[in-house]
């Protein structure tokens, strides 16, 4: 078994119109820029995929990555906790113009819903958002005298994530705070594609240090020296 792909084009070829796509990253740390841009390039060339639901903590920054997807009109809906960021004009404009839907989820609930999706837990109870407008319409139940909101799992058709080391079996490590949602998303998507900064042979990662075991990964593509979203934005980059 070898999960290594040979091109970014191949890596994003399976994503269909209307798909739900989890994209790793928190702000610029962990954003799989090259995978996203390959997907945008495909859209520009073929008109597909469009009508996507994208799950990420944020809603893009500047004019690269998720913001560039929104700018191209590929995204029907964002599921995220914090669509306001340093330079979020793309999402803000689309949202205020009614061109994009937003499902706002508290950050810890977003993480737990994704983990639940990967772990086969269809619903769980959390104290987060009890008594607030984000709990409206959700079942509330009391345990030991305290109210909790029932939240549902989140799954996706695809996950696009960025990792540091990846072996042919799909075992992954991450780089510092670029880990964030990616291990959860890898487990919660029907198909998980990973851009790794260094593709290595099985056995090259100490079994104690593997963060995402390969069972959660379907394909890896090596992208050496990947772009960092924050640095792109500080340089005023646009894609395309």
């Amino acid at each position, binding site marked *: *078994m070898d999960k290594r792909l040979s091109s970014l084009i191949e890596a994003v070829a399976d994503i269909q119109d209307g798909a739900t796509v989890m994209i790793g990253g928190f702000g610029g740390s962990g954003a799989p820029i090259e995978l996203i841009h390959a997907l945008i390039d495909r859209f520009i060339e073929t008109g597909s995929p469009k009508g996507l639901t994208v799950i990420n903590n944020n809603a893009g920054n500047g004019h690269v990555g998720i913001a560039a997807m929104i700018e191209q009109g590929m995204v029907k809906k964002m599921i995220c906790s914090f669509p306001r960021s340093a330079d979020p004009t793309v999402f803000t404009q689309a949202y205020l113009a009614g061109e994009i839907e937003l499902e706002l989820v508290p950050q810890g609930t977003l993480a737990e819903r994704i*983990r639940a*999706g*990967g*772990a*086969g*837990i269809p619903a769980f109870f959390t104290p987060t958002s009890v008594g607030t407008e984000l709990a409206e319409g959700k079942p509330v139940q009391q345990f030991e005298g305290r109210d909790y909101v029932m939240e549902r799992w989140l799954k996706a058709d695809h996950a696009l994530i960025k990792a540091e080391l990846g*072996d*042919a*079996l799909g*075992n992954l490590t991450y780089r510092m705070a670029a880990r964030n949602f990616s291990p959860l998303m890898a*487990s*919660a998507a029907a198909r998980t594609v990973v851009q790794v900064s260094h593709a290595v*042979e*099985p*056995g090259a990662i100490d*079994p*104690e240090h*593997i963060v995402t*075991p*390969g*069972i*959660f990964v379907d394909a890896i593509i090596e992208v050496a020296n990947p772009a960092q979203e924050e640095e792109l934005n500080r340089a005023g980059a646009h894609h395309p």
Partner: protein
Amino acid sequence: MTEKLSNAQIAWRAAQDIADGAYVNLGIGFPEMVARFQPPGREAIFHTENGVLGFGGAPEPGEEDWDLINAGKKAITLKPGTAFFHHADSFAMVRGGHLDVAILGAYEVAETGDLANWSTGPKGVPAVGGAMDLVHGAKRVAVITDHVTKKGQPKLVERCSLPLTGVGCVTRVYSSLAVIDIEGGRFVLREKLPAITMENLQNLTGAKLHVTAPVEDLICPEL
């Protein structure tokens, strides 16, 4: 009693259906034997509940490291690509549908797909381990078993009489006499030993065997 497959032969037959690169959990005891019979050119990746993925076979006697064991508490070995993780992540793999196949033993399997394999009733100390988790989540739950009990009673039945491990979870049974799929609440016979007649096989089975396509010969090597 008629000629039947040995446990090794049942395990061999089950191993033939495991694809290259499949993620597989083998129940403790007899099912562990399936790992010995991976067809040439195919490599399954084995998962064990206690937090190891992609491990190798048993070490040489005397070479055991008892911190490196499987769910049956037997010593295993590392291979390139082995990964360690904690128990919640391990059962996320199980419950979350990430395993391709789980192969389990059985006291009884019903035509409904119900499985009983954890308790022989109220006597003694009950112990469930990971069986109730494994029957959910794996894309395919198969059973390997003698076709009848030591007393000659059917293990493939209309309804289980022992406490259930899971409801409607088993999709294929590899027995000492036949290979049987469970589809739409029915046993569908796929393969049988050439030496056994349909009538004899039906007599040893506690529920009706359906035939929806030509029944193949179940032929295993001497092992």
